[in-house]
């Protein structure tokens, strides 16, 4: 019970009922007041008119005329419709449908509302008391009980409306609460599952797209990001376990052998140089992994500044041009104006460099690599690196961005297999995407970045 009152549905329902009743009262009170006034005023006017007419009859025809007029009126009317009474100065009834002067009506002339017994029934009546010449008293009255049923209906109606309001409010509250609890229970179950490590679970958003759905979608977006981050961490630890252990094992065996065999100085120094190269390789992998983790965490977004992607691409081409010439590959930058965007200059430079470096690695001598930066739809900017090398099979494309994946063609070339992972991570940091497509022949890598940065979903 305590829980019920704390629930938002109960508060909502109570509020609804209170507000409904208040609105009803605001509507009913003026109505009631208006009704009362109209009825009473009309009644008083009618009675006064009657009294006026009786006074007129008395003036024209005297007391006897009045008596017979009243007798005639009483005979004609529906019983109980009107109360008529003429008495002498001592209040003895002379004519009319009242057997005696009601004690509750004062002796003075005037308009009164009084309680009295009428034919044995207690009732309320309105009377106009007129004094005529000769001490005659004329009493014209009307039984207000005639309107009692109407008034009663009014009150019943009002009470009924309040009752319906209350029932609907309570039922609605219970219903809303039940629905809410069901939806929240679903969310709670999912969250509990996620807390137990089943990160792939998602909240149900199949409903009509109401407020809870919107919230669920936002939470799902958050879960997506969390899962991605956690997978990233898992990948990094897997990568460390796998790809750092190999060179470390080599290094260890090299040093151990050196320590055991103690070869001639010349050979020793050659081995030490080789060991240093091993260490440098470990450090390179380590730095690349750290950078990837850092990019993935999204922290570097604070370092975004306005930059021209075209200049980044042109600079990278200029940097790699001599290396391409040495290999006999034609590396060209196709200028198509500025491509302003906002991003991290170091990371974008690294991403473009990795793409060009990759292309140069796989394109055979005599091949071409072409780089361009263009403004895309909206605030998107696209840097494309196209080559006419051996290309990549469709099945291999998604694997290329995986950490430490090395294409079949790359066996025997230098590199640690993190280049495209970095490009992919940089693209995602900039709210964009890395697309690998066929260039017929060759590979077309498109790095799309958004000037406005990533949308928070």
């Amino acid at each position, binding site marked *: 019970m305590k829980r019920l009152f704390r629930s938002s549905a109960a508060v909502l329902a109570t509020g609804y009922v209170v507000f409904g009743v208040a609105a009803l009262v605001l509507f009913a009170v003026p109505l009631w007041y208006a009704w009362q006034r109209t009825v009473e005023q009309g009644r008083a006017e009618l009675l006064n008119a009657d009294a006026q007419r009786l006074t007129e009859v008395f003036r024209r025809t005297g007391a006897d005329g009045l008596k017979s007029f009243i007798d005639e009126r009483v005979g004609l009317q529906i019983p109980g419709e009107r109360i008529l009474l003429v008495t002498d100065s001592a209040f003895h009834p002379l004519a009319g449908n009242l057997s005696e002067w009601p004690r509750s009506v004062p002796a003075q002339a005037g308009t009164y509302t009084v309680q009295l017994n009428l034919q044995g029934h207690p009732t309320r009546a309105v009377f106009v008391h007129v004094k005529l010449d000769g001490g005659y008293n004329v009493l014209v009255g009307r039984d207000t009980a005639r309107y009692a049923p109407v008034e009663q209906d009014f009150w019943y109606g009002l009470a009924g409306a309040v009752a319906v309001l209350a029932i609907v409010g309570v039922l609605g509250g219970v219903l809303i609460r039940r629905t809410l609890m069901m939806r929240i229970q679903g969310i709670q179950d999912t969250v509990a599952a996620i807390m137990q490590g089943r990160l792939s679970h998602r909240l149900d958003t199949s409903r009509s797209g109401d407020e809870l759905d919107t919230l669920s979608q936002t939470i799902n977006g958050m879960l997506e990001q969390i899962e991605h981050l956690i997978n990233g961490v898992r990948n990094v630890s897997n990568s460390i376990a796998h790809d750092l252990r190999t060179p470390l094992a080599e290094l260890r065996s090299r040093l151990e052998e050196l320590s055991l065999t103690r070869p001639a100085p010349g050979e020793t120094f050659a081995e030490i*140089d080789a060991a240093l190269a091993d*260490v*440098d390789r470990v*450090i*390179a992998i380590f*730095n690349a992994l*750290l*950078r990837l983790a*850092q990019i993935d965490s999204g922290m*570097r977004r604070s*370092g975004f500044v306005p930059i021209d992607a075209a200049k980044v691409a042109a*600079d990278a081409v*200029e*940097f*790699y041009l*001599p*290396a391409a010439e*040495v290999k006999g590959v034609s590396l060209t930058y196709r200028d198509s104006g500025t491509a302003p965007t906002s991003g991290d200059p*170091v990371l974008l*430079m*690294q991403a473009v*460099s*990795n793409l060009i*470096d990759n292309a140069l690695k796989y394109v055979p001598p005599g091949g071409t690599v072409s780089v361009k930066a263009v403004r895309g739809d909206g605030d998107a900017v696209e840097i494309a690196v196209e080559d006419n090398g051996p290309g990549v099979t469709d099945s291999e494309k998604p694997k290329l961005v995986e950490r430490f994946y090395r294409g079949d063609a790359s066996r025997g070339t*230098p*590199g*640690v297999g993190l280049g495209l992972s970095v490009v992919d991570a940089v693209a995602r940091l900039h709210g964009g995407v890395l697309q690998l497509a066929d260039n017929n022949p060759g590979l077309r890598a498109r790095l799309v970045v958004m000037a406005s940065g990533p949308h928070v979903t």
Partner: protein
Amino acid sequence: MKLLLVEDNERVTRFVTKGLHEAGHAVDHAGNGRDGLFMAASEPYDVIIMDRMLPGQIDGLGIIEALRRSGNRTPILILSALSDVDERIRGLQAGGDDYLTKPFAFGELLARLDALGRRGQDAKGASDRTLEVDNLRMDLLSRKVQRGPRAIVLQPREFKLLEYLMRHADQVVTRTMLLENVWEYHFDPQTNVVDVHVSKLRQKIDVAPERPLLRTVRNAGYMITSHD
């Protein structure tokens, strides 16, 4: 040169001190932040090598800021395991002149110390309008390069590369230093592209039978020098 090493790790200290002694430098050592600040403030040094995370109430950046506030302009090389670009920027903003991340190659450290020590001397002299090594002459205003009577035509980036090498004549310049200062690449592109750029430049400035000026220093980098 007279150097101060502020570093709490004993092995790194021994390694660096030994190497610097062999290279002909005098090295003082402080093992914590308090001593480091005291020594840096009381003795004149050519270059200070500063670790960032130090015991003794004050860390490396704190020492640098304190020195700079007191008007000490000694070149400082920050030597740190904090490798983020952001950390690097913070180090330089605090008043450091160069930033080298651990682990590092000794050759890299030595080359950067030489460059910093030279910068200190340069600041004392007037800024040159021309750079000269042997009969190789670079006019910084007209941006013309001549080897003896022979005019050499250089691309803008080649000019920048040669200028950097000539400003550090008779010093070893590492590939990383070239990447950072000529191309402003603050990451390792894992290629030999710098070597290709240098060998292209060499083809332009050292034409047989001229005496080769641009030398490759094994396991370290490059040096432009007129000495044999």
